[in-house]
């Protein structure tokens, strides 16, 4: 930061906001290139339709813009925006569920039984599984995990550190590592490794 910048930040935050919106815009757009896909995948994994997920991600970046414009902390923006997406996706899912309560209950039933079918019979280690079969099996095992465990695993799959995951999901660092240890043990078992 140049000296002029720090002086502006100290004494004239409101004027700085007015002068430099384009820089913040550019910063947000750059981060959009980087995080749009991970965030969209994460939003989708809450089971909301793609157009809702896209909207959630857009809203998250608008929130980021406001956050930066108000000169809030820039420390670990990645965890920050994942947390926003997490909350918005949950909210969206809740809103959707109010409309389709009954039909989704039926769907969930059939989904659960599908998961059981694909998991059973237990895999024989010597049996050769095609890549597509392995993929389906892994995903089915994950879908059967408790929700928080799924969230931790998906965030880890997007490259977040444990501390960031704890921050996004709202649990302790220790709980994150316990959750992941448990999920991984299950995945390893299902994979017949």
């Amino acid at each position: 930061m140049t000296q002029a910048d720090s002086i502006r930040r100290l004494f004239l935050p409101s004027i700085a906001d007015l002068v430099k919106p384009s820089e913040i815009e550019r910063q947000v757009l750059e981060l959009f290139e980087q995080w749009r896909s991970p965030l969209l995948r994460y939003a989708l994994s809450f089971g909301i339709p793609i157009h809702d997920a896209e909207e959630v991600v857009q809203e998250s970046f608008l929130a980021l813009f406001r956050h930066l414009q108000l000169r809030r902390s820039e420390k670990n923006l990645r965890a920050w925006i994942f947390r926003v997406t997490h909350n918005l996706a949950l909210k969206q899912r809740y809103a959707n569920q109010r409309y389709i309560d009954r039909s989704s209950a039926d769907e969930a039933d059939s989904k659960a039984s599908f998961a059981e079918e694909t998991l059973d019979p237990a895999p024989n280690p010597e049996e050769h599984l095609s890549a597509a079969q392995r993929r389906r099996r892994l995903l089915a095992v994950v879908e059967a995990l408790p929700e928080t465990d799924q969230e931790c695993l998906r965030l880890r799959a997007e490259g977040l550190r444990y501390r960031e995951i704890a921050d996004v999901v709202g649990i302790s660092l220790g709980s994150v590592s316990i959750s992941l240890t448990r999920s991984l043990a299950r995945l390893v078992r299902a994979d017949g490794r």
Partner: protein
Amino acid sequence: MLRHDAQVSDTHVSDQELLLAADGELSTSRRALVQAHLAACWNCRARMAEMEATIADFARAHRENLDPQMPPIDGARALLRAQLSQLSAQSTSGLWQRVSHLATPDRASVLAFAMLLAVIAGGLLIRNSVRGEKRTTAAFSQMSPVPNRSLTPGVARIVSANDVCSMAHEEVVGEVSPLLREKVLREYGIVNAHPGEYEIDYLIAPGLGGEEDIRNLWPESYQSPTWNARVKDALEEHLHEMVCAGQVDLSTAQRDIATDWIAAYKKYFHSDRPLPLSSRVEIEKVPWLPES
């Protein structure tokens, strides 16, 4: 911590601790013990590799499952761009305080216009995107694995080895702010580069007293076939441990890594080529590992 000494040599490391070790979340002393155990214990190494491979497999499956249904980024980018410039315009005309929830009456028309833009822009961009990507990749492959010395001579704070060795995890990791990142890229003349393909790396790592200063930062490619960012990360960790173990003094470590980090790697690992991260797992094969 000393009382763990005897334990670690004959007790296996728990899965949970292996995961934390992979994420750099153990205390320095505990980490040294776990690494010593891993170096000697095939069983724990295999378990760690298995867990990491499982997450990598899941990450791949997760992407392959969801990516096909994700629309191209162009439309969404155009929409965001339009919304942002609308917000900026509002804030410059002093309306900012009143629109904190984006509930302005003309939002619908902005959206409609942006959608139209998005469709047009999407069509144009998809046509050009393939060529654009190739250009970017070419820029990376030409990138040197060492920084430009006049732009990045390396800057360190005045600290003692004790300060460095008692640093909290966050300080050692040293995330570079997006703004500074942008400045470093511009300084190196990189435009339109894909953000995931390089690390804005500290020449002198924070764990060795390196400063978050543009003269200590440069864009380091993950793509370089041999001397890439992950190899340098291994060197930084190794040097940090050597400094904390009193095997190298801090100023020597700083000087060596700033002068020529590849030469420093060869010197401190006694190897002319990057080691396959031997006693630890093969980090470069695990795409989900964090970048920093």
